[in-house]
């Protein structure tokens, strides 16, 4: 943002396009990250839109009810609809907040701050992945896989009336949350590499923490996608 404010002062908006300078006041690396995320957003959008199309094809009547599918919580057992997934959402949001803080400390050239907040970010990512692993394991244990449909008891646990959902639900769930989880995993790996670089002072020597900002964008994007995955699978 310093970049932006400085250049705005240096050049009036009208001639930033005249060449010899970056028209958005942004270095190419950050710009590339943004456009890569735009491109990646199209992949996720294609998945989510396919989800919508398939859901409409199957029909609303036999689409499973999220409150029944996702009502488990570790240790506590069943009967807590959406509680666990809300926890996952909060973890991811918080992790995203930590990342913003890391980026801000990076702008202040505060190495210690970056280490602290980036460390929290990575922990948040790992926590999210662990939660997702638990959720997947739980659902697979309950019989929902890529090739067998979701089942649950309509009137709550122990009521006996079994609802059998369409195959498509489980397939879409695992594909899309899996693809999201793959992004989170990549994010954690990249964050860790950047974290080590921060610790070893690579960016201190370079006199900028741009790399933290770039991986930060990626991390927020993962959060952004989760918001829509959350909407598709748990809220609608």
């Amino acid at each position, binding site marked *: *943002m*310093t*970049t*932006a404010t400085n250049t*705005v002062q240096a050049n009036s908006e009208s001639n*930033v396009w005249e060449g010899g300078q970056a*028209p*958005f*006041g*942004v270095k190419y690396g950050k*710009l590339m990250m*943004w*456009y890569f995320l*735009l491109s990646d*957003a*199209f992949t996720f*959008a*294609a998945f989510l*839109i*396919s989800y*919508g*199309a*398939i*859901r*409409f*094809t*199957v*029909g*609303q009547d036999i689409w499973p*009810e*999220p*409150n029944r599918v996702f009502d488990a919580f570790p240790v506590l057992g069943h009967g807590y*609809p*959406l509680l666990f997934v*809300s926890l996952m*959402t*909060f973890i991811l*949001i918080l992790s*995203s*907040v930590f*990342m*913003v*803080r890391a*980026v*801000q400390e990076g*702008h*202040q*050239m505060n190495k210690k701050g970056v280490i602290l907040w980036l460390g929290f970010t990575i922990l948040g990512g790992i926590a999210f992945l662990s939660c997702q692993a638990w959720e997947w394991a739980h659902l697979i244990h309950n019989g929902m896989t890529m090739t067998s449909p979701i089942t649950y008891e309509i009137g709550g646990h122990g009521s006996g009336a079994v609802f059998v959902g369409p195959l498509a639900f489980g397939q879409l769930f695992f594909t899309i949350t899996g693809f999201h989880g793959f992004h989170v995993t990549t994010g954690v790996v990249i964050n860790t590499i950047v974290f080590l670089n921060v610790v070893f002072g690579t960016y201190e020597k370079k006199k*900028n923490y741009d790399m933290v900002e770039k991986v930060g*964008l990626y991390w*927020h*994007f993962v*959060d*952004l996608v989760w*918001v829509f995955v*959350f*909407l598709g699978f*748990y*809220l*609608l």
Partner: protein
Amino acid sequence: MILSDQEYQMHKAAVWRATIILSVVTTVEVGIALLYDTFFHESGFRMALAVFMIMATLVKAYYIVAVFMHLKYERKAMAITILMPIMFLIWLLIALLMEGVSWHQMIEFYG
């Protein structure tokens, strides 16, 4: 690069504000989603809830993109180049949902 202390505090405050908004919206969403328990198969009510959920999600997406991803503070031209292409997805969404409905009817045809 280094911001003045005042600016730094301001940005920090903006982030925490966004965090609170995101948390509140998510909580409200989840709270309302619990209503599905009773009304899951009533299409009119569902439709209203779905519209609410989508709106709330867009609000969340706005805060993530604008504050966390810092797009609000970038030059407008850049924000436009990033946001305009999303328009293409809207037509993809509309077309495929209409197709989904029509496939449903074509499958239902034979029961």
